[in-house]
Every structure is written in structure tokens, then in C-alpha cells.
């Protein structure tokens, strides 16, 4: 009974967010194309550096030399990090900005339910953006993908999302108490982007960053997705990747909820809820 109530509340949050978002049509359409603008320089720069679309060194490191496909798949699927950092991270701050946070918090639903409602919304939104980009890039650059890898890739995304949701819950609470919360999000975001093998394999990172990378869910997510779609060779097996994703996911969710609850208490103790 309670679970059904919570699920309905999540869905209501999702629908409400769509309705608000679609009132800003220009922003919505811009949002669909925005990630492309950040992917294209990586592709064009890559081509300029190797003088073509094929890199011998990349093939040596990853088993695939097609730099465009390699980079594009990495970047497109990193889009789900946006869900955690911006979509969920700003879920509560957004309500604060609308002025409705207190109204929402006075309703008989645990607070993390809103954040998960936002996660639902943001994941669907991000999925749409990723689909959109895949189609555009397919037509511009003509990617060659292993179709049979799509289903297992979706599965991997699903498992990767567990950790990202943990991160999102953590950030949504931090953003609530720090005036410059976007900077925390931006720092985490930029850092994860650097230590995740998106446009380059881990081998080129300094060893300390390589070690940190082994704790990032995105490392296993992106590498395994590329393994399924274009046959990237990695240092770990698919089984290992799934296992580590599950462990990291559990750890991040527990940590996220732990911090979330502490901050929720603190905010209600200090009365910082309405002030922004």
C-alpha cells in the first residue's frame, strides 16, 4: 500500500516536471542538441591529431582503432551522469526556487521519494536526448555497431544507474545547504569525466587517477557498453564489471541516503528550508 503510494508520488513528480519543462520550449529543444556541441570538438580534434579517423595507437590500447565510434559511444552514454549530477542533484533546489519545497515536504511521503521521482524524470529525459544524438551521429558519421550488443548494453546502463542514483541523492542534499551547490556538482562532474575512459582508455592516465578510476561506476559502465557494441578489449571481464558495479552501487546508495538523512535533519533543525 505504502509502496504504491510512493510509486504514484514518483510518477506524479515525473509528470509535473515534464509539464513545467515543456513550458520552456526553446530550452527543451536546445537541451536535445546541447551534448552534441560538446562531443563534436572531441571528434574533430581527434581527427586533426591523427590525420584521419583511424588511430593505430588506440587500436593497440583498446582493440578498436575507429576513434569516432569509440569517442561517440563514450560521450553519449556519459549523458546519464547528467541525470545524477544535475537532474537529481538539483531536484530539491529547484523546488526551493519554485517556492514549493515546504509544501512538498509537508506531504506524507519520505523526502527521498521526490529525488527518485526526479531521477525517473531525468532518466527518461536523458534517454530521449541520447536516442536523439545517436540518430544524428549515425547519419553524420555512419557508425558501425554490433546490434546484438544493444540489449546487454541497456542492462549494463540499468546497473550503472544504481550508483548514479546514489550519487544523485547525495548531491541533492548537499546542494540544499550550500549556497554555491552548483560548484560541488560541477567539480564532481568534471572530475568523474576525467577519470572515466570516455575518449581515451585508462592506460594514458597517471597511475593515481587510474586507481581512482577503478572506483567509478562509469568506468565499468562505459567500457562494458563499448565492449558489447564495438568489441573494446578491457583489463576486466564482463562478469567482474557487473559485480563491481553492484558493489559500488550498493555503497553509493547507502552513503547517499546516509548523508541525505543527516542533512535533512540538520535543515529541519536549523530552519534553513525556506531560505534561499
Amino acid at each position: 500500500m505504502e509502496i504504491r503510494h510512493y510509486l504514484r508520488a514518483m510518477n506524479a513528480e515525473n509528470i509535473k516536471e515534464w509539464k513545467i519543462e515543456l513550458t520552456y520550449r526553446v530550452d527543451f529543444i536546445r537541451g536535445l542538441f546541447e551534448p552534441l556541441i560538446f562531443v563534436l570538438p572531441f571528434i574533430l580534434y581527434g581527427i586533426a591529431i591523427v590525420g584521419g579517423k583511424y588511430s593505430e595507437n588506440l587500436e593497440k590500447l583498446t582493440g578498436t582503432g575507429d576513434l569516432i565510434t569509440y569517442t561517440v559511444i563514450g560521450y553519449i552514454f556519459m549523458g546519464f551522469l547528467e541525470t545524477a549530477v544535475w537532474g537529481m542533484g538539483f531536484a530539491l533546489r529547484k523546488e526551493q526556487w519554485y517556492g514549493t519545497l515546504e509544501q512538498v515536504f509537508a506531504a506524507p511521503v519520505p523526502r527521498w521519494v521526490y529525488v527518485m521521482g526526479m531521477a525517473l524524470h531525468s532518466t527518461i529525459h536523458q534517454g530521449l536526448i541520447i536516442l536523439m544524438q545517436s540518430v544524428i551521429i549515425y547519419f553524420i558519421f555512419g557508425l558501425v555497431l554490433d546490434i546484438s550488443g544493444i540489449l546487454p548494453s541497456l542492462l549494463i546502463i540499468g546497473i550503472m544507474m544504481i550508483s548514479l542514483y546514489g550519487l544523485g541523492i547525495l548531491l541533492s542534499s548537499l546542494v540544499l545547504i550550500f549556497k554555491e551547490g552548483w560548484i560541488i556538482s560541477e567539480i564532481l562532474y568534471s572530475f568523474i569525466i576525467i577519470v572515466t575512459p570516455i575518449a581515451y582508455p585508462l592506460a594514458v592516465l597517471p597511475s593515481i587517477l587510474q586507481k581512482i578510476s577503478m572506483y567509478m561506476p562509469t568506468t565499468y559502465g562505459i567500457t562494458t557498453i563499448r565492449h558489447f557494441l564495438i568489441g573494446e578489449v578491457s583489463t576486466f571481464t564482463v562478469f567482474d564489471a557487473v559485480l563491481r558495479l553492484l558493489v559500488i552501487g550498493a555503497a553509493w546508495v547507502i552513503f547517499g541516503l546516509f548523508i541525505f538523512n543527516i542533512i535533512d535533519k540538520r535543515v529541519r533543525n536549523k530552519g534553513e528550508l525556506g531560505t534561499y
Partner: protein
Amino acid sequence: MNSFYNLSIISAEIKKCLKILLCYPMELVFWCIFPIFWAVPFIFQGNALVGGMESEAFSDLTGTTQFMPYILIGAVLNTYVLSALYGMSNSLREESYWGTLELILGSPCSKIPILLGKALNEAVTSTLFAVMQIFICIIIFGLDVAVNQILPIMLIVILLMLGLYGLSIALAGITIQIKQSHSLIHTIEYLFYLFSPVRYPVNINPWIRMVSLVIPLTYALTVVRGIMLLDKSLINLWQNVVILLAIDIGLIVLGYYIFFYIEKRARKSGIISMY
């Protein structure tokens, strides 16, 4: 008397903007570091693709095999674009959010010193960011900056800023008119990012190269990279400097007219108080 009055307005505006800026110390630190941070993946990517820090193919397009300093210079100069686009029109948007924009536009003083104050404040802070970024580049990435290069680079940076502030004055005007100007500002940012050689040589594609010719950042990047990476002097690169100057004049005139046209219209239609 009059010029003294205007100067005091400029300094008051700068003081106010700096004080507001100092309320966000994390933001200051952020802008000193992150534009470089964002460029780092390109350096690793280059290394992964060619298996080293030099690329012959890159040199065919740019004249230098060294892609790392190429990327770093792009990142530092791009800070000026971000700061001009977001800083100044954001500053006006915030004023309208706080309700102070109406008071400013309704005050008896000329609006030019206020805009100048905002622009100067922007220039000072973004130069502070750029200098900090260059220090980081020197320490972490071993970027070479020779003392005799500093003066010509500063000249180019000033020319770049003039054009950018012309543009942002125009945008400031548009911000008064339409509430959701950030869409337009984002679009301009993306045009600058994609169609000027911030991250990659634009001659890789003739279409991109054509568009890049109308963007002032293209010329500034060409000259600064020419000086720092190709050992050229300003005299070798004079054509770029002249074109940059011409674009500056165009943008300033455009900015001036758009701002005052819209301000007048806004006062007639009363759109400012509708925020």
C-alpha cells in the same frame, strides 16, 4: 565636472560588482581552475590517439606538433568569452531579479558609465582568472611563456575584450527585452566554442573555417598561438590584428545601438517592471 561624475559612477559600479562577487569566494576559485580542468581530457585523448605528446598530422593543420599548449591556450582565452557572455548579461539579469534594474535605469545618470563599470569589472576579474590559469598551466603542464611575449599577448587580449564587451552590451540590452535571454547566450557560447579554434584547428573543415572568420576569438587565438607556439611577432600577424580591430569597432557600435534602442523601448512599454 561631468567626467568626474561619470568616473565616480564607474568606480561605484565596479565596487558594487566586486563586493557582490566576493560573496561567492568558491566561485572565484572555481573560475581560476576549471576552464583548465575541462581541457584536460583533450590532452589525454591526444596521447591515447598518437601514443605521445606530439603529432605530425596536427602540425600540418596548425604549424605546431604540440597539441598540449595549443589546447591550454584555447582554454585560457575561452574564459574571456564565458565571462563576457555570462558575467555581464547575468549581472543585468540579476539586477532585474533583485528589482534594482528598474532603479538604475530610472536614475538620472547616463547608462554608459554603468555599462563601462560592469565591463571593466568583468575585465579585471577575468584577467585575474586567466593569470591564475596560466600559472597552473606553467606549474602542472610546463607551459612556456617568455617575458617578451607578455606585452603583445596583453594587447590582443584587450582587443578581444573590446569586441566581447560590445557583444555583451548588445546582449545586456536584449536581456532587458526578453526574459529568457539565456537561451540566446548559450547559443552564442556554443557557436564560439564549436566554430572557433578553441579546441581544434578549424581548417579541418572548409565550412567550419568559413563560419570561424566572423568570430573575433578566432583571430585572437591565431595571434596568441602564433606568438607563443610559432615564435611569430605581432608584425608577422598584423592582418589578424587589423581584422580583430575592425570586428571590435563593429561590435561596439552594434552593442551601443541595440542597448539604447531597447532601453528606450522598454521605458515606453514598461516591460522592465514586468519581471
